[in-house]
């Protein structure tokens, strides 16, 4: 006779930006159900924004998620620009593109490193993070900070970049192309990774659509959706680039999509830096008329969606923020069920739910067969042992 065991993951654990609490219900080695409790990171930003002026809000929303701190303000200012019918100058559009793509490279490399760590490939972790450093340097060159850019404002961008800065960004991005290509080939050709990632955590196309999955999570499941192409913003419709997507829906597909996107991002930066026109960097916006609008942006993790309503005063009446992970995390209900516990760590990681804080997982309790402790370190260990086992077999 089988019985269901409950494994708690969290609330303090490395996978989520919003320290979350997962409960896995397992039968032997198989996961039969997943439950999630959030709130640990709820700060009430939507209410806070109602007490800030339209110009102050970008500084709050870039602190929604530190890794997407270029995408959130951009989505917000696009919504406000739609209300106020602002025409943003060309040069500002290119500058926005450059910062957003640098952010994509740093975020995807961060993911590759941590995914490697969860699988027991710490070399990948160290390599990916080493190659990520020059990109953070480029962001520091471009905006003055490694992670909070304070780049967007309503009507344009806050700071111009000189030719020297643009050249330095071009050089740093170009130099990271080789290492990223090497990482991509290493992942695509590795037989152990094939054994660990293929047919693991499969999210079908129908499920991805029903759960509203966005970004690499959706593109890995055969949904060729990308806000940058479908509803172009910044300078994405002025530059030649392509959307990568895979049909299989497993973790391998999501990893491949992210790596190919990183290479694509380097190309976008190179083209943007070479094609950037001169001129103004912001349109002078006087006031925001009453109205409502939505703005969405393709953040590294998926579509970031903002809704703003104005009543003609200096303060937004309502500002709704929806981060991509809010739609991607519920897909665990479709992708984790039927998995082995050893595969859960990488499946949870595969949607890139902004894991920021490795080694912060807590305990697990067995509901029926007495107390048994399980923590995320052990989940990662199980996952790493499985890789070792497969490596020996091959």
């Amino acid at each position: 006779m089988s019985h269901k065991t409950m494994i708690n993951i969290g609330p303090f654990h490395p996978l989520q930006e919003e320290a979350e609490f997962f409960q896995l219900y397992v039968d032997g080695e198989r996961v039969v159900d997943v439950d999630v409790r959030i709130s640990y990171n709820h700060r009430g930003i939507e209410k806070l924004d109602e007490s800030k002026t339209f110009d102050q809000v970008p500084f709050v929303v870039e602190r929604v998620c530190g890794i997407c701190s270029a995408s959130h303000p951009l989505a917000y200012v696009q919504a406000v620009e739609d209300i106020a019918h602002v025409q943003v100058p060309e040069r500002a559009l290119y500058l926005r593109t450059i910062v957003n793509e640098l952010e994509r490279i740093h975020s995807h490399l961060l993911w590759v490193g941590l995914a490697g760590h969860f699988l027991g490939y710490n070399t990948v972790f160290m390599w990916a993070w080493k190659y990520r450093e020059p990109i953070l340097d480029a962001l520091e060159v471009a905006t003055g900070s490694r992670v909070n850019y304070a780049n967007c404002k309503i009507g344009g961008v806050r700071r111009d970049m000189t030719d020297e800065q643009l050249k330095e960004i071009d050089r740093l991005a170009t130099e990271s192309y080789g290492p990223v290509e090497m990482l991509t080939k290493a992942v695509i050709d590795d037989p152990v990774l094939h054994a660990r990632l293929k047919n693991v955590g499969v999210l079908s196309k129908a499920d991805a659509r029903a759960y509203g999955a966005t970004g690499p999570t959706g593109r890995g499941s055969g949904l060729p959706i990308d806000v940058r192409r479908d509803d172009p913003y910044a300078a994405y419709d002025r530059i030649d680039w392509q959307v990568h997507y895979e049909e299989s829906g497993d973790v391998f597909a999501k990893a491949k999509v992210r790596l190919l996107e990183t290479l694509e991002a380097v190309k976008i930066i190179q083209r943007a830096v070479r094609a950037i026109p001169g001129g103004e960097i912001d349109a002078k916006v006087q006031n925001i008329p009453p109205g409502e609008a939505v703005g969405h942006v393709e953040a590294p993790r998926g579509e970031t969606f903002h809704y703003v309503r104005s009543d003609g005063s200096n303060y937004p009446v309502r500002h709704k923020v929806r981060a991509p992970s809010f739609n991607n995390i519920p897909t665990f209900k479709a992708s984790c069920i039927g998995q082995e516990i050893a595969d859960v760590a990488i499946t949870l990681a595969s949607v890139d739910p902004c894991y920021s804080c490795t080694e912060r997982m807590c305990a697990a309790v067995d509901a029926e067969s007495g107390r048994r402790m399980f923590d995320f370190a052990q989940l990662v260990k199980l996952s790493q042992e499985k890789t070792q086992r497969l490596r020996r077999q091959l």
Partner: protein
Amino acid sequence: MSEVAIPREVQVPLEGFVGEVLGALGDAVIGVERCDERRGFARIDPQRTVEVARRMLAMAGTRLATATGIDVRDGIDVLYHWCIEPQGVVVTLKVLAAGPEMTVDSIAPVVPAANWIEREMHDLLGANFRGHPDMRRLILDDSWPEGVYPLRKDFDQVRDRPPLPPAPPAPEEALP
């Protein structure tokens, strides 16, 4: 629900792709506020929310991006934002959760993507969703009092903040 006064009703002509989408919903649409190349804002009949959601999901390339709840004079305005790809269109369908119960039919049984966002609106605004499969607390913390809704307009984020819970009791003395 004609007895509810819906604020600022406007009717604009249906044009282009957004017009086709709104037109396909037929008389479930009771007012169109904006309809241009890539954005549409329309109000739908609160009695037919689920039917509209089912029809929207059946169209090609649609997905529910999210929903927004807004505290307005007559109740809670619930805005479902649908993205349609590859046209890059965002169609916002508004439903008013009116009456003392502020209730509207849940679309979560039809569209799984609405599950969390409806729970969030229930937490933060006190809107109720009839037929939601799992209306447990999602966003607010365990010690937050029932019936206090922080995104309501009459809630002041500093003055009306509920008292903090006391520190957990000290554990029994550790063994020497």
